């Protein structure tokens, strides 16, 4: 079944096709959610909400442009919406134990560590860092998405970099 057919069947609400679509894209989107969320549990919640929106709005996708790009945008928006709502909770969450306890192979230690560092960043820093570094948005775009000014966006990015840098240096000392 082509992607187009799969999408059309999802538009009709066919559960099998919805599942197939989920299997096809959940990996990519969960990866995104992990980067944009504070921890795995929240990432799963965000993935859930994103797919609900995708299935709800899929009727509006008209096969112009990339479907993957479309669902990624929905996912980012879902996450942003969530953390915009809880702006007042914008404090660093102490989640070291949970994330670090995950057993990993030596070869990808750095990757899961890096992910953990991002997740540990306060909301605004994490979202800004991801939008700027991972997804290549400009400060102007980010300020619009987060409802702040470009100046705030720039300073958020700088703070995010500083925190990440400190963590990496600390880690390097530990390893050494």
């Amino acid at each position: 079944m082509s992607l187009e057919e799969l999408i059309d069947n999802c538009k009709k609400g066919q559960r099998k096709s919805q599942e197939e679509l989920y299997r096809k894209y959940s990996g990519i989107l969960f990866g995104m959610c992990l980067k944009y969320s504070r921890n795995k549990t929240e990432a799963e919640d965000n993935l859930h909400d994103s797919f609900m929106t995708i299935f709800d709005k899929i009727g509006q996708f008209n096969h112009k442009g990339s479907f993957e790009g479309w669902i990624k945008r929905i996912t980012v928006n879902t996450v942003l919406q969530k953390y915009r709502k809880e702006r007042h909770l914008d404090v660093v969450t102490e989640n070291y134990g949970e994330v670090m306890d995950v057993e990993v192979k030596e070869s990808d230690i750095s990757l899961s560590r890096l992910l953990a560092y991002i997740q540990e960043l306060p909301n605004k820093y994490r979202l800004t860092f991801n939008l700027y570094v991972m997804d290549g948005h400009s400060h102007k775009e980010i300020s619009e998405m987060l409802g702040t000014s470009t100046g705030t966006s720039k300073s958020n990015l700088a703070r995010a970099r500083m925190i990440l840098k400190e963590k990496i240096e600390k880690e390097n000392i530990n390893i050494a």
Partner: protein
Amino acid sequence: MEKNNLDNLFKDNLKNFNEVPEEGVWKKIEASLDKNKKNRVVPIWWQLGGVAALLAILFYVVNPFGSNEGNETIIITDIQNTKTDNENDMKEISPISEEKEGVQPVEVTSNSTEKSKTSLAKSTQKTISKDNKDQQQGLVASNDNIKTKKELSNRLQMAEIQNDTISNQQAIAEVSTLNEKSSLKNSQIENQNSLEIDEENAVGQVDKTNGTKKSIYDAIAEQNQDEKEVIIEKNQNRWAMGPSVAPVYFDAQGQGSPIHSNFATNSKSGSLNLSYGLQVSYGVSKKLSIRTGVHKVDFGYDTNDVVFSSSLQASTSDLIDNISYSQASRNLVVESKSRSQAATNDVAFSEFNAASPALEGRMVQQMGYLEVPLELNYALIDKKFGVNVIGGVSSLFLIDNSVSLESGGLVTEMGSANNVNNVNFSTNVGLGFNYDFSSKIQLNLEPVFKYQLNTFSETAGRFRPYSIGVYSGINFKF
């Protein structure tokens, strides 16, 4: 560490970071999808339950679509091969009762016949199906519409079937869409059979006959493009029906009076009435639909500043020609206030006026019609929220006609106007806004301007009535 190095470190490692979520996430999504489905469907049906029941009764009584349309979903209930050659097995397709379920049985057939090279010709439309694993099958649907074309069962000129069977049926349309695409890409049809449906029993009997594969294949190629368009149309619910209700404002342009020239200069005020009825529409194409219906509508307007009194010596000269007076109101004298004031200067009238004091008030003319519109509806925006342009004509049949006088809280019947045409027409222009609750239910809101062409057979002055109504209603598509 340099900023860029830091960015790159994260970007290189995590940009395309991919992780498969745990199985539980899908389970939750599935549960939420189920919940949404229920939440969405149930309340609407509760709310619309009454309307649906009403419609069901109407369908039962009126049956506006005749047996031809209505029975089609049932026709395909059983499909059997009556003749088989050595390559074909007997196949039975389980009953199809609903649109959605309709898809399933055919898929089952596809699977069961995977290994045998079988083509089935089936009624409403032809569908050549072939599964992804290079199994060859043709599913061609033929229904009673085709019955008259006997040669089709032998030749199966796809083009003809296509054209002849454009009228359709939802279940088959869905089935065909499913099967069509894969089949057209790589089909090699070796055998083909046609199904003839026994109309009287409403049970389809599949009659397999050998045909030439080449003709089918060629025909498919030629029809490929047309077919896609036709299928899109078939997927729509062509018929829609539903109740509609509207506040209707009736007024007139220009000075004049349909009652008497005396009242030509009097101010008139329109009145607000209710229109309600049932409308039916049929989709000619994706964008264009034609519709009709029956609406009960009342029109009325007031002639202000009227003076009336009762005269003991009613003379024919005092009566207004355009009104057929009721027995009790024969000695009413009705005049325009301005004329009445002018008349008081006349010595002959002053006595008369003194004898019977006149009441000031307004003259109310009411007309009730059965309106049968014939309108075209063109979709400018055809999405969940749609915008349409509506244009057409209405025939109005007079069923109620009265003229009365109102003064203070008193109402006096005068009679009925005799210059109101029993049948008149209006030209209608409007905008339609609709919102799809589901693929079956649509909410409409339509402001429509209707210019009345010949409401009155004779009017004094230029009295051009029109009406503006904001029609709202629910359409059920099927």
